[in-house]
């Protein structure tokens, strides 16, 4: 009896263990796929923080994500007189950078030479900043002082303290610095890591000693906003594009919701001449590529919808949001989704309302629409995603000025802005990540609707 009992226990334990191992194997596979699907984004997002995202070999190590650097940046920014997160070099303040070099045996130990360079930021801004006041003209390097010297293998390790003082009456938001050492002298460490090490390690260069932690981490993201200004209005282009994208998306979502449910209801429940033909045509239109219709649509907008806009004193609808919106009030797919949904609802309520004397409009507004909430939820998300990500049609309609661009077209223009010569991938990646954020947040919050939306447009019916 006891042996029997032991035996059963044994088997139970084995089954249990096996089940756990099965689950473990599945999780392992799932994790591998996660790396495949998410890794790309995360790595792109991390690299968008780097000074040079194209550095070879690519590595996960990001200076901008090291606690040691954050502390160093914070301390320097505090010395500058403003906050540690958003820093400044205020009048009368002094900042001091500590830096350690290794001098190999045989190399003469001389302190590094410090230069405050005059740098322009980006191409777009430089044009507007001709009378820029350079920090270099107002602050001075007070002293370069040796603070310690220790013997190490094959050489000497020497630490210096470099103090910079702002004795002018002005405050500055940036303080770049270049340190030059003789050849073969090795940079070891500093209060925080330099942004670049150039010329075989002879030059260590910092973009901004007093910027504060946030601008330090999101350096490229700040560049995206700060370096692109509109030629005509002087406003920040990237902010304008975000605003444009939100405006167009929200308007189109609203028109789509209203008009798609109206048309969907009519197609699903009302009898009228040519209903079936219309439905076949809608299906047909869903298969026809946008490239077939865009030339005519371009002309229609150019001529102000057959000259109709002239009645209101308008002209061409090219390069206007009106044009972009009016040509995409409601898509065939949206109507299709709503039609399929309304067809799936029971008829009883509608019929009894009709017997009670309700009109078609009343039935639609008071009975059908409230029932359509789940479909409308899915449709909202689908439309938002579709319009936010739309590329081809805005590319055709919005060509100039750059103030009129949506985010997708604006990002495309980044390829020109930051690719004269070598690609400056930092701001390009940063811009891409920022523009994906709203949709990713929306997705995380409403992911149920995303999945439902796909099923609605695909499976139902």
């Amino acid at each position, binding site marked *: 009896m006891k042996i029997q009992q032991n035996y059963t226990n044994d088997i139970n334990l084995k089954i249990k263990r096996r089940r756990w191992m099965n689950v473990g194997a599945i999780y392992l596979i*799932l994790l591998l796929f996660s790396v495949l699907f998410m890794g790309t984004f995360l790595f792109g997002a991390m690299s968008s923080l780097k000074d040079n995202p194209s550095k070879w070999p690519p590595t996960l190590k990001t200076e901008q994500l090291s606690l040691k650097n954050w502390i160093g940046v914070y301390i320097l920014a505090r010395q500058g007189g403003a906050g540690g997160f958003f820093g400044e070099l205020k009048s009368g303040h002094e900042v001091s950078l500590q830096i350690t070099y290794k001098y190999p045996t045989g190399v003469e130990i001389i302190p590094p030479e410090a230069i405050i360079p005059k740098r322009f930021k980006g191409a777009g801004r430089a044009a507007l900043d001709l009378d820029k006041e350079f920090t270099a003209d107002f602050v001075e390097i007070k002293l370069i002082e040796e603070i310690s010297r220790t013997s190490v293998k094959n050489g000497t390790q020497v630490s210096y303290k470099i103090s910079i003082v702002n004795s002018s009456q002005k405050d500055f938001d940036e303080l770049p610095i270049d340190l030059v050492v003789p050849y073969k002298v090795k940079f070891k460490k500093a209060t925080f890591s330099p942004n670049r090490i150039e010329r075989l390690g002879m030059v260590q260069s910092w973009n901004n000693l007093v910027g504060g932690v946030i601008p330090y981490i999101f350096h490229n993201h700040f560049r995206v906003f700060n370096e692109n200004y509109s030629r005509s209005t002087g406003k920040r282009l990237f902010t304008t594009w975000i605003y444009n994208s939100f405006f167009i998306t929200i308007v189109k979502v609203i028109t789509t919701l209203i008009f798609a449910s109206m048309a969907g209801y*009519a197609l699903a429940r009302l009898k009228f001449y040519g209903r079936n033909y219309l439905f076949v045509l809608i*299906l047909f239109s869903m*298969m026809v590529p946008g490239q077939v219709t865009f030339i005519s649509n*371009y002309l229609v907008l150019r001529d102000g*919808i057959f000259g109709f806009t002239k009645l209101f004193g308008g002209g061409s609808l090219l390069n206007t949001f009106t044009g972009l919106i009016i040509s*995409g009030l409601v898509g*065939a797919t949206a109507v299709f989704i709503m039609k399929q949904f309304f067809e799936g609802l029971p008829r009883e309520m509608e019929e009894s309302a009709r017997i009670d004397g309700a009109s078609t409009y009343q039935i639609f507004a008071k009975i059908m629409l409230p029932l359509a909430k789940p479909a409308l939820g899915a449709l909202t998300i689908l439309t938002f995603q579709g319009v936010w990500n739309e590329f081809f049609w805005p590319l055709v309609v919005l060509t100039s000025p750059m103030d009129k661009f949506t985010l997708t077209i604006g*990002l495309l223009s980044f390829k020109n802005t930051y690719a004269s010569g070598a690609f400056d991938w930092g701001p390009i990646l940063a811009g891409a990540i920022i523009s994906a954020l709203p949709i990713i947040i929306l997705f995380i919050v409403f992911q149920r609707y995303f999945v439902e939306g796909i099923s609605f447009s*695909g499976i139902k019916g």
Partner: protein
Amino acid sequence: MENRWSSLKEKTAPYVLLSPFLFGFIVFFSYAFIRSLYFSFTDYDLFSIPNWVGITNYINLFKEHLFTRALRNSLTFAIIVTTLQTIFALLLAVVMNQKIRGIKYFRTAYYMPSVTSSIVITLIFMWMFQRKGVINYLLTLLHQYGLTIGVFLALLAGIQFLLVFKEKLRGRQVEYLEPSYIILSIILASIITYVFKDFGIIKPIEAKAVDIFWLNTREKVPFWAGPFAFPRPLGAIMILNIWTTVPTFMILYLAGLQGIPKALYEAAEVDGAKGWQKFWYITVPQLKHITFLVVTLGLIGTLQMFDQVKIIGNQAPLESTITLAYYVYQSAFPGASAPKVGMASAAAIILAVLTLTVVLIQKVFSGEGRGLRD
């Protein structure tokens, strides 16, 4: 009077409800479609009055090298991407169709590539496909540690086989890919590989960095495929496109999988069907409708591929990436030279006809009696 008014209101109701949609549908689809068809038989250039030229445009198109290249690229792209993404989506859906804790989070994570815009994804991929980019770096690592990985995989297969064989000798029913043994095999194989490496029996190869031009090249891959080879930049776009579309189609398949009656699998198990037999004889046929939908949507999507070509732009030779959709755009808005709207429209009509034909052929071959999405 009151009655007549309300009766009129009822009669016109469908048209009133439809009117906003019909406005757009007539002006921006029907009219545009017919006008494109008309333009395709003219020499229109956006500015002067169009002249009727018959089918000259269509004939000229097939004489133009760039167009035939675009046609070929589009077809290759559509066939390869649709096939691969359908297979991957199905396999991924089967893996994801588990009732374990946290599966929802994984689904969310996997779906991420499908919600972001083509420009974001393409820019990130362009960065990864650089000469000194992530993809080439991973390939370099693969080259350097190829032997190590090979030894590991061989050990893994060997140990797994031994474990399963041992169980089989005892007369137990075990599958060769039994997951619980795989874990054990992975652990054992890792330990042995590590020991080998530690004793210097296997060493990473001192290889140069892989230097593949992914975008800026006219090279064709695979080199042995002869006339069926396609430009490597197109291959890069294929990889990126499969990566972004698989999750969407996976969700369609998941919904389908949940609709398959459990009884079918139970009956098959009673008859002694193994894992892959169940997959091949139950899952695949039961998902036939979904597969039709996935293939149709895939074909429509891939034949229209435009964004990636435009975004990659001059980073790759135009000839290597051009698709029909891009050809149409490029002919209508060529930048410096005069727009060839006639040619563009003809190419667009060919693209539309091609899409419809491919979907129809697909429908006939899959034996799907019902209409699209029906």
